[in-house]
């Protein structure tokens, strides 16, 4: 019985004019293009300077900032109002104001009349911009004052070291995440549409009057997506290797293992939603709703640790949290399931709940 049901699912999948192409092309395209786009590195911050001092000292400070490579000097204004107008027009991201008495006060060490204004509508850009500016100013101060009284004040030499990603390559960080997104989307959207379309054509009723058991029917529906997801995973890993030159630090087997667990969860969710939806549009909306929430609350784009307590609690119910964490840990750090057993446990728990619920709620007979 299984053989025939599987045969049917595969035939239907590959016979659809758009589906197979889309299911395979989408993640591959995503993998080829998106790594270039996903960068949190902030460059070309538009800087406007209000230089009231017009001295040698202020010139040196400005040069220090522009030489860092993060800033683009847009203009040097005379009045703060003019600079503010530029910021209102989105032409300036940061304004650095140097007061008239700058060079004298710095010379005598009586003060530091410099102000920074940062446009923080975009949080990241703002906070990183102000960090850069502050560090430029710190560097300026160090250069000016090569600590003549060095022996008197104690010094702690601090060295930074970054494990696993010495070059601080953001692309590398996003590669496993993009794989996660691609696979999750495919395995969530396709099964959901599948059952609903059987509902809409009425074929599901013909199956319901046969002795096919519900678990057999649902499992046969999941298996093709499992195959597709493995294919996609393999293709993505190959692209990461051939195009970007990244290799998985851990054992590939673990990537496939965690992907299998994720598929159970997502396909279960898809089927569950389609069981409760009366048409494809509804199913798609709900799935999309969950997919976007899963994605933005998974720690893929922003760290989970920075969420408020209640939101962190919600993420424990987010399968993508576990899957993304597992894929990143294995790919970037070479973790083994012994290290990240909790990700497997989370996926298994959610997966069992989803699949169980999906099978229970798929009724062969109505009340």
């Amino acid at each position, binding site marked *: 019985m299984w053989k025939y049901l599987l045969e049917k699912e595969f035939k*239907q999948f590959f016979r659809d004019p758009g589906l197979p192409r889309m299911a395979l092309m989408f993640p591959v395209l995503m993998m080829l293009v998106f790594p270039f786009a996903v960068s949190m590195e902030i460059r070309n911050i538009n800087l406007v300077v209000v230089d009231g001092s017009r001295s040698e000292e202020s010139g040196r400070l400005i040069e220090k900032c522009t030489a860092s490579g993060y800033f683009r000097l847009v203009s040097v204004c005379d009045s703060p109002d003019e600079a503010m107008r530029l910021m209102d027009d989105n032409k300036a991201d940061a304004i650095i104001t140097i007061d008239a008495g700058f060079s004298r006060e710095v010379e005598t060490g009586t003060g530091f009349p410099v102000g920074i204004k940062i446009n923080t509508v975009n949080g990241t850009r703002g906070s990183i911009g102000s960090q850069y500016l502050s560090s430029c100013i710190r560097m300026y101060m160090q250069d000016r004052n090569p600590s003549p009284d060095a022996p008197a004040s104690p010094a702690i030499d601090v060295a930074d070291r970054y494990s696993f990603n010495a070059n601080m390559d953001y692309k590398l960080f996003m590669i496993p995440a993009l794989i996660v997104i691609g696979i999750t989307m495919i395995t969530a959207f396709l099964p959901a549409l599948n059952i609903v379309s059987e509902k809409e054509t*009425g074929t599901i009723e013909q199956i319901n*009057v046969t002795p096919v058991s519900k678990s057999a029917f649902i499992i046969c529906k999941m298996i093709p997506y499992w195959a597709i997801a493995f294919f996609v995973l393999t293709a993505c890993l190959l692209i990461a290797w051939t195009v970007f030159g990244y290799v998985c630090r851990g054992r590939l087997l673990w990537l496939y293992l965690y992907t299998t667990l994720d598929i159970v969860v997502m396909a279960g969710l898809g089927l569950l939603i389609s069981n409760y939806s009366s048409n494809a549009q509804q199913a798609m909306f709900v799935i999309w709703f969950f997919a976007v929430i899963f994605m933005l609350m998974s720690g893929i784009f922003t760290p989970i640790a920075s969420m408020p307590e209640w939101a962190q609690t919600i993420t424990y119910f987010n399968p993508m949290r576990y899957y993304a964490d597992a894929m990143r840990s294995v790919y970037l750090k070479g973790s083994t399931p012994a290290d990240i057993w909790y990700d497997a446990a989370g996926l298994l728990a959610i997966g069992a709940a989803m699949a169980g619920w999906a099978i229970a709620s798929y009724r062969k007979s109505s009340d």
Partner: protein
Amino acid sequence: MEENVITIWNLTKKFGNFTAVDNISFDVRKGEIFGFLGANGAGKTTAMRILCGLSRPTSGEGTVAGYDINTGQEKIKRHIGYMSQKFSLYPDLTVRENIRLFGGIYGLKDREIRVKTDAMLGMLGMQSEKDKFAGDLPLGWKQKLAFSIALIHGPEIIFLDEPTGGVDPETRRRFWEMIYDTAEKGVTVFVTTHYMDEAEYCDRVSVMVDGKIAAMDSPAGLKSGYHARNMDEVFRIIAGRAEREE
């Protein structure tokens, strides 16, 4: 006395406070063509879905093919065939693939399926259409195909839910020939319809009105009982008492 393959006592089905099927009881004998008549919304499809194990009764007892309708639904499904009013074979599978799928689902072996497929295609005269998508066939052929597939596992009873909706009289007549052939082989046919001329072809008919069985007899018996010339007239007399709106 012939044996009964369907026995139903006091079957009731409620959806919320709407009673779709209201305390009906009847028997169907082996090998007969049993017509289930009624206007749209009279409850005939609901009753039939319960008999097929697609829906659970609110109350009532009964057996279909020897299995209890409350507890033996999955067993019932092995012994019945079902054809819904909507064409429900996979439109994106070919004729042959559809036959293979349903043969497989009912546990036939590959070899048996091959033999059955050839026999079925020959009987339907669809040899040259075997690799066409089921969705592309004309409606009449789709229905004949669906009917044959519903019989693929040799069920004892076949349920037909308005099988001839939307086709021309000639196709309908030929479809009924297939039904006769099937009944002759000892398969019980349970058919719902709202075409009154089709009721004449049945061995016995029951007329449902407002979820209740208003009359049940052979077409001849009904006609003489109501002093009517044909079934249409019988139906108009009985259905005239209906209170429920469509």
